[in-house]
């Protein structure tokens, strides 16, 4: 069952085409990896899915009942708030029931390892802490679809491992996740299926079962190096 479908998405900024006819879908319970070089159109695609920017062409279909959680690449919060206040603020915007929200906030602070820093102001948070808080706010309200944009960037080795564990746990609970990362090994560990985006187009996709021994890195290099090479690969679906 499809939870999200993008059809022929196009986004133009003046004369530049950031996304040029991109089509893909995400199945319920699937973890979809998004891979592509810088400027490939991944973040623009995410912004269109989230409704933050209007597509120039094509459309995005998401079931109206689907609750979406989003963790941005560069976490941005009001610096005068504490970690706990940030979660409280966003829970109010989501109109979560106050009595249900408070235990959830506590749980998320614990889950993201921020319980000790919950009363610390955001301006004093490290990049890794901000990243974990961004992840925490994305989980508010128990979303059906989770969009994680570079969730491991800014994290040290331990933080990265912990973050990937958290994502794996969510995956095992049947959450649908779109995982955008430039760290190929992270995507390889987490994603059920990975799509390659170059120049705003779908250059290819590969599922975990189709990898069989080939590393995602090899496929990525082939794709980014030239779509012709990628097409000749048997495990690679254009």
């Amino acid at each position: 069952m499809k939870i999200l479908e993008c059809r022929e998405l196009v986004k133009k900024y003046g004369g530049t085409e950031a996304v040029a006819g991109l089509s893909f879908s995400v199945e319920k319970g699937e973890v979809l990896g998004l891979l592509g070089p810088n400027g490939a159109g991944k973040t623009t695609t995410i912004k269109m899915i989230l409704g933050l920017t209007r597509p120039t062409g094509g459309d995005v279909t998401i079931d109206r009942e689907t609750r979406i959680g989003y963790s941005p690449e560069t976490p941005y919060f009001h610096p005068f708030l504490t970690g706990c206040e940030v979660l409280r603020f966003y829970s109010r915007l989501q109109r979560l029931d106050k009595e249900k929200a408070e235990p959830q906030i506590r749980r998320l602070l614990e889950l993201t390892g921020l319980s000790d820093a919950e009363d610390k102001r955001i301006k004093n948070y490290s990049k890794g802490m901000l990243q974990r808080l961004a992840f925490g706010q994305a989980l508010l309200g128990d979303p059906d679809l989770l969009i994680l944009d570079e969730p491991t960037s800014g994290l040290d080795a331990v933080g990265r491992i912990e973050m990937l564990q958290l994502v794996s746990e969510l995956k095992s609970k049947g959450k649908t996740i779109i995982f955008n990362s430039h760290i190929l090994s992270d995507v390889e560990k987490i994603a059920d299926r990975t799509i390659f985006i170059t120049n705003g187009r779908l250059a290819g996709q590969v599922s975990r079962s189709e990898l069989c021994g080939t590393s995602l890195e090899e496929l990525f290099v082939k794709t980014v190096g030239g779509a012709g090479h990628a097409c000749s690969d048997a495990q690679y679906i254009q």
Partner: protein
Amino acid sequence: MLALMRNTFNERIRSRTFYVVGIIGMVIMLLITTGNGNLTINGKKVSGFEPMVPVALSIIGFVSSLLAVMVSLQTIPNEFERKTTHLVLIRGIKPWQYMFSLTAGNMLASVFCMLSLYVSLLIFTAAHGKIGLFLPTFLCIAIMSINTMLLSAAVSLLSIKLPVYITGILGLVIYVMGVLHGVLDTLAGTTQGFGRVLADAALFIVPDFSAVQQQASNVLIWMPLDPKPLLVSLLQLYVILSLTFVVFRREV
């Protein structure tokens, strides 16, 4: 929307700049109204309650307007620059709800700044043994808050689309034109033809801060109150707030 308003209000009043300007304003106000400043206008020493009331209100009007511009200037651009907009808009908050809430938060913070300055006016009133004037002072505060809210809302609206420095300059221009509304009105009367039409149009748009301030002053010195400038200002405030429903940035 209330959560957004409260968040904006809290962020604004926690700004260090606000406290610095506010304290300077209060000190100037206290020095002048308590007589320690030896205020002289046109070579004549101004003292006593009645002559000092318009002076005190002008000082409060000036400092609170400056604070209103400062408080309202960066709230909305900051949201776009920090991209806190993303995490708000994905939660089903409509752009108009967002902009209106931020503007309302700015207005509340500006009025709060203004109230802090009125503490010195209350001290001044008490110092002259006019305790009975406390109640009219509150009415005076309510009237003056129309000016503050109007300026704050106008600056907030401009800041949705314009860069911060241009918004700041325009905010100050609106304030100066608003304070000199009467003078500009007289000047406009001397022009003819298309120039007259332009001048009239500009004066119609620019709020008449001086007329509202005059009414606030009248309340304190038991003079008759003219509701027309107040109603016109409230109508202008309504129009500005309505515009926050339709103005938004193309890219968030």
